[in-house]
C-alpha cells in the first residue's frame, strides 16, 4: 500500500494499509486513514469507537474483543459496519491507529 502523506509528513503503512508504527497516530492521521477506508468524515459516533479502541489498546496492548467493543460503545455490529464499512478489525482498528491483528483471528 502506498504510504500516507499527512501535512508533508510521510507515514508508513503496511500492505493492508495499517500503520507500521502505532506511535505516529494523531487525529489528522486518523482522517487520512479514514479516507483510505472510504469514510469521508469522522463523526462523533466514529470518535466514540476510535477513542474506546485507543484507550483499550493503550491499557492492554491489544484490541478488545468485538463483543466488548459493541457493548462498551452501545453500538451493535450492524452500526459498526455502517460507520466503518470494512468492519471493526479492518476498518475501525485501522483508523484508530492500531496495528494489524495477529494470531489465528
Amino acid at each position, binding site marked *: 500500500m502506498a504510504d500516507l502523506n499527512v501535512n508533508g509528513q510521510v507515514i508508513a503503512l503496511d500492505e493492508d494499509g495499517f500503520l507500521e508504527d502505532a506511535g505516529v497516530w494523531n487525529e489528522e492521521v486518523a482522517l487520512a486513514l479514514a479516507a483510505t477506508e472510504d469514510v469521508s468524515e469522522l463523526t462523533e459516533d466514529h470518535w466514540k469507537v476510535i477513542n474506546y479502541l485507543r484507550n483499550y489498546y493503550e*491499557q492492554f496492548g491489544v484490541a478488545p474483543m468485538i463483543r466488548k467493543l459493541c457493548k462498551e460503545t452501545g453500538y451493535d455490529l450492524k452500526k459498526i459496519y455502517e460507520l466503518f464499512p470494512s468492519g471493526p478489525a479492518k476498518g475501525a482498528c485501522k483508523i484508530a491507529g492500531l496495528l494489524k491483528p495477529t494470531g*489465528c483471528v
Partner: protein
Amino acid sequence: MIDHKDLRPKDLGNPDQQLIKLQELMPLAAPYDKPGMEPDFKEIKDSWKEKYCASLDGFVGIDTLIRPKSKEEEEEFVGKFLNGLEKIFSDANNGVLQPLLLSFEYCAKCNTCSEACHTFAASGKNELYRPIFRSEVLRKIAKKYFTTSGKFFGSLVGADIDVNWETVARLGELAYRCNLCRRCAQTCPLGLDNSILAKEIRKIFSQEMGIAPNPLHEKGSMLQLKTGSSTGITKPAFLDTLEFLEEDIEEKYGRKIKFPLDKKGADILLLHNAGEFMAWPENPIAFAILFEEAGLDWTLSSEMMGYDNVNYGLWYDDTQAKKIALQQMRVAQELGVNRIVIGECGHAHKASAIVADRMAAAEGKIPVESCLPILWDMVRTNRLKLDPGKNNFPVTLHDPCNVVRQMGIVQPQRNILKAICTRFREMTPHGVDNYCCGGGSGFAIMNHCNFSDFRNKVSARMKFKQILGAFQDTMENSEVPKYVCAPCSNCKGTIRDILEYYQASAKFNVHFGGLVELMVNALVSMEKPFLEFLE
C-alpha cells in the same frame, strides 16, 4: 511465461520472469459453476515484483523474502541456503532425518501423490503444484552440490539446474504452496512424504537464513514468546477478557459461570487457541458451559504461555517450536494437573500431543489429550441433556487434517454430530481421506500482497467445492441456514474467508463454527438459541 505442461524442475533457475500464470482452475459445484460467480485474481503490482519474489506463480507468500541489492547479497543468500541444505542431511537434524532421507531417496515418481493433492487438483493440474515437483527441484540442487557424480557430470546425471537467487527464492515460495496436510503421504505406495521436504525448505529459510513469513514468526512465535500469545493478548488482557465474558454469559444466557483459573491440582488444564477469545469467544464460552454442566474438574491458566495453545514453529522452525512447547508443558507441570486437553485447534493437537511429546524430557511429562473423545464421552454417558431437534438444519463436518490424518481421531466428532443434529451429512471424502481446508500450515493467517487470493481460489478451492457438494439439496434455498462445523481455529478462519470471498453466507445462508457451539445449542437447559444466526 512457460506453458505449465512444459514446465520442468530446472526451469526454476531461469532468469526472472514469472514461471506460470494460473488460468483454468478446477470447476466448482453449483451454483458456483456459472460464469461470474467468483471474483478474479487481483492484478499483481509492479512494486511487489520489484520488492519480493513474485516470479514463481505471481503470488507473494513470504513477506520477508526481499530481493538482493548487490551481487554479494545474492551470493550470501544462495550460500546460506546451500549450507542449510547440507545440514538437514546431517545428524544435527536427527528428529526427522530418517523419514527425510527415505522421502528424498526412494521416490519412484509414480505420481500417485499428485492425484491426492487438493492444490494440484484445484490449480487445474498445473505441473508446478505436483507434490513431487518441489521435491525434484530440491533433489537436483542437492545432486549438483553434494554428490560426486553431480559435481563432475552435471546435467548428464540430472543435476541440470542453475542455482541463483531466483531459483532459491522460488523454491522458498513453493514451500509455501503446500499445506503440509500429508494427504499425499497417506496415498504414497512407498510411504514417502513430500510435505517433509516442503517443511525442510521452510526450516532452512527460517533457521539458516532468518526468513519466514511475518504472521508466523515475528507476529506469531516471537509475539507469543514476548506476550504469551500470538494474538498479543497479555495476562491483564486475558483476565479482562474472562471477566467480560462471565458478565456476557450471564446477560445473554442467564447463566452464572466462573471460568476456573489457575486451579492447582485440577484434573484438566484446558488449552484454547487464544484466537478464539478474540474472534470467536462463543467457542471458549461453549466449552465452559459444557464442562460445567458435565461436572468436570478443569481449569484455564492465566500464566505466560498457559492461555494460548498455538505453536506456529511447527510449520517452519524446530527451535521456535521447541521453545514454545516446553514452556506450555511447564505451565501444566506447575499447576500439577493430570492432563492437558487441547481445545478446537488442529495444529495445537499435533504440536502438543505429537511433536512436543518428543521434545519434552520424560520426567514430569504431562499427558496431552484431544477434547473430542472427552466431549463424546459426555454425550455417550448422558451427562448432558441434549435435544437434536434444536439443531434442525443441514450440518456438515470439516475434518481438520491434524486431528484425523495425523492423530486418527475420526469417530468421536461424528458420533456427537449424529446425536445432536437432525440433518447431518458427510462431505465427500471425509475422515482420514479428508481434504485440507486450504489454510493449513499458516496459510490461514498469511494475507500479504495477493496471497489470500491463492488461498481463497486455489488451496481452499477443494474445500469450498466439498461444502457446496454437501449442501447440494438446499444450497440455493437461502431460507435454510446451513452450518459447516469446523472444530479448529485455523480451519474456521479459512472457511470464514471463503464464505465471505464467494459471498456464500450473504447469498445462500451458509454459516460456520465449531463443534461445542452446536452442542450447547442442543442443550435442553438453554432457553434461547446459542447460535446467533438462529435468533
